[in-house]
């Protein structure tokens, strides 16, 4: 089993290299640094000197892959690829356009993101699974039909609507929570409550329906019939047998996002003014701060791959077939 895990981690390295090369190609090959400078400085009146200065400020004035003018190791290290792309492997993300360290920024903004994303994730999981279990329990009845219809309706509504509608009703009409903002410590509750509720509500439709499909698939299997033939009650069958087996497909979709919770949600954070990584990303996109976007892309895939490995670990917990072979 340990060999299995080591192998999974081992597999992650080439994938990260691939991501790194992809971002490098996207940010430096598709458009040259000159193009980016021209775009940011305004296309019409831009002098070559201004472009050079812009590039120098950001360290883009080096060759892409191979520096023939430098000597020794500098041939490779004194290049854009080495300093901007390869350096991300040691989590050195460089500086944003306003001159701040991106790594520092990530550290401070992680907590607000997590304060919203983690509760949303946990409460959501409980709510969705319970709702799906209820529908499964009442399958082939009108109650289940109504539940599915509700799910389809809810998943047809734009995610933006949940946020805008929620802000409007809860904050503007009922004045139950501040529209936006964030504070640390004990005050944080009143700021994070609404985003969490909205985040949970927004996922009910698709997630519950997905879990219901998984449960229904499990409940049609032979071992469930065996459990019923033992004389177990329907609830015992559902919780002891079906839920335990359904955990395997559920974990596949769920565990992988856990590390990504650090990244926060772009929409929620931006609408509610939460100073997390999500709003950081959106601000960077709007300001066309390429180094921040590049850092977030790499961080995102790093966390995703961590999620994949976590998923593999979680299988060994719930599935004896993986654990013991």
């Amino acid at each position, binding site marked *: 089993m340990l*060999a299995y895990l080591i192998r999974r981690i081992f597999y992650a390295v080439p994938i990260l290299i691939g991501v790194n090369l992809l971002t490098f190609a996207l940010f430096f090959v598709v458009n040259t640094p000159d193009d980016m400078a021209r775009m940011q400085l305004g296309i019409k009146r831009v002098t070559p000197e201004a472009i050079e200065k812009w590039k120098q400020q950001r360290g883009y004035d080096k060759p892409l892959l191979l520096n023939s003018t430098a000597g020794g190791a500098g041939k490779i290290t004194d290049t854009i690829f080495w300093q901007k792309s390869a350096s991300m492997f040691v989590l050195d993300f460089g500086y944003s356009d306003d001159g701040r360290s991106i790594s520092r920024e990530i550290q401070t903004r992680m907590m607000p993101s997590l304060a919203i994303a983690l509760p949303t994730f946990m409460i959501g999981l409980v709510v969705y699974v319970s709702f799906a279990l209820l529908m499964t329990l009442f399958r*082939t009845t009108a109650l289940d039909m109504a539940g599915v219809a509700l799910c389809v309706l809810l998943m047809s509504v734009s995610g933006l609507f949940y946020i805008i509608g929620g802000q409007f009703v809860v904050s503007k009409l009922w004045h139950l929570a501040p529209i936006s903002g964030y504070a640390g410590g004990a005050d944080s509750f009143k700021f994070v409550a609404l985003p969490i509720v909205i985040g949970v509500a927004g996922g009910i439709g698709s997630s519950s329906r997905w879990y219901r499909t998984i449960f229904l698939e499990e409940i049609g299997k032979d071992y469930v019939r*065996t459990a019923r033939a033992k004389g177990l009650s329907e609830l015992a069958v559902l919780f002891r047998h079906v839920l335990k*087996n359904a955990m395997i497909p559920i974990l596949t979709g769920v565990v992988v996002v856990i590390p990504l919770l650090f990244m926060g949600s772009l929409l929620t954070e931006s609408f509610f003014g939460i100073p997390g990584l999500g709003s950081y990303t959106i601000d960077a996109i709007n300001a066309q701060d390429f180094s921040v976007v590049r850092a977030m892309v790499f961080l995102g895939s790093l966390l995703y791959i961590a999620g994949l490995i976590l998923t593999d670990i979680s299988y060994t917990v719930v599935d*004896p077939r993986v654990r013991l072979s």
Partner: protein
Amino acid sequence: MNTLSPSPSPASGGGESLLNVQGLVTQLRNGARIVDDISFTIKAGETFALLGESGCGKSMTALSLLRLLPDGVTHAGGTAQMDGVELFGLQEREMREVRGGRIAMIFQEPGLSLNPVLTVGQQIAEVLALRQDLHGVAAQQRGVELLDQVGIPDAQRRIAEYPFQLSGGMKQRVMIAMALAGQPELLVADEPTTALDVTIQAQVLQLLRDTQAASGMALMLITHDLGVVAEMAHQVGVMYAGQIVEQASRAQLLAQPLHPYTQKLFAALPDMTRRNQPLAAIPGNVPPLGGGMRGCRFAPRCDKAWALCGEQAPDWTVVAEGQGVRCHLYADGGSHVGWVERSDTHHLLNAGDGYRCAPPILPASLLQVSDLHVHFPIRKGILQRVVGQVKAVDGVSLEIAQGRTLALVGESGCGKTTLGKALLQLIQPTAGSVRFAGHELIGLNGNELRARRAAMQMVFQDPYASLNPKMRVAEILEEGMAALNIGGSSAARQAHIDTLLDQVGLARAAKWRYPHEFSGGQRQRIAIARALAVSPQLLICDEPTSALDVSVQAQIINLLKTLQQELNLSYLFITHNLAVVDYLAHEVCVMYQGRIVERGTTDEVLHAPKHAYTKTLLAAVPVIRSAQRNPLNTAPSSVAG
């Protein structure tokens, strides 16, 4: 309906009536009856077998009794009294006391019927907690006892294992242990050995008999296998299309089956004594589930049917003590019984013609395989290094002569299918030589191999998986001709397709249809026609009848035999069914763990086996007609078979 209930057999009259089912009807939402007016009685300590082909409603009968019908199927009438308690009148809560308590059930697929994420012990403990209020260490201890009782070695260790760590036979033993944990009065076993190898089947059947002897519980055994019935049952109900068409004690049924369907089932069984005559196949197919029809349901396939059979459904007729039948032949005190035996033969053959005996002189060898190895690497560790080899085929040598049939016999996992595919070069052999008509096939490149492909073709096991559902029959038959560039012009190919369909006994119009419009037996005919399309000399038949019902199996075996005579084909017949081998094969190879452990003519191997494995294999096969063997000697003495 004026159904007379089958009276209990006095021969087994000692037992108390345990379960009494009257007029049971189970139907789909659209009203189609899949179990139609079934009545039977099971006595304490007795084995009642429900015999029937796939789709006749026997499993649904059992699930109805436990009230475990799948969604969309409902109980629509009839009663089931267990010691005077009406099962269909119980509250769901009370019914749960019955399930696993008074009636336990085991299923066909032990691999799927156990919860994969709970240990054996946990699954048994569930029943113990429910039925005997045993928990913790006590439950653990009782669980080990139960596993011991069902013959699982090292029960202390096994109880903490998961189902995937057990073999198929062990899983079924665990299922039985789980059923026994509730100390049931009746055990319903739904095809308990169908998914198991024949040697394992023999062990599990023995276990069921022993358990019954020890606990005195009744057994309701659902099966399609006449052999299993002959070994196990005291009473037998023969089901066809949702109804019980005949009911009798085992002895009566074996001595004199009454219903034409039952008679045909016996006659359709292949064995050596019939080797030179065609099998009595039942024409047509098992009717689909719940297909309502007027008159007798078997009438369309019955060669004794007359006008009345098509119009009026026959009533239940008691013919002898303990033997009843649903057939017009016996309605008026058996006035029709003295029928004249009509031709039994398959429509492809002239009646009475029979088969020629195998040619006395040995013809030239067509296929020569020597020292063939197929190994699959086992990879392990961080770097997935090859740490060993699975020797699926481990040094096999065999020969097949022109126009002869070589049977390759073995249990699942012995490598026989891998061998078949390796001969066709569908799997790359690791070492050895395959010479066909003097030409070495191993190591040929694509084009050289293609030139040789036409001569050797394969018929697969599962007729539902072996035809592409998105292609018409004509396209399926033409594919090989097109790929191998034979058969000439398109018109010539179409004519050839017509001939092929004639040969395998299908209507020419079939070529415009898609596979899903055909039954299993018809699909197997199409698969045979596809292989024949390129005029091969050797057919590798990989369990071609194991997915088919007995009555349809006989049709296909007859067809294969006829084709062999007409076309002078050679067969490599891969199978686990020794009766078919006995009937069909000239020579036999017995395969065990990748090696051939015994070979010889069919008579030598099957009737004077030398290798211990062959002997075990032969001993495990349930015997239907032999009177010497008394399967009831372990049953309670009150039930005298």
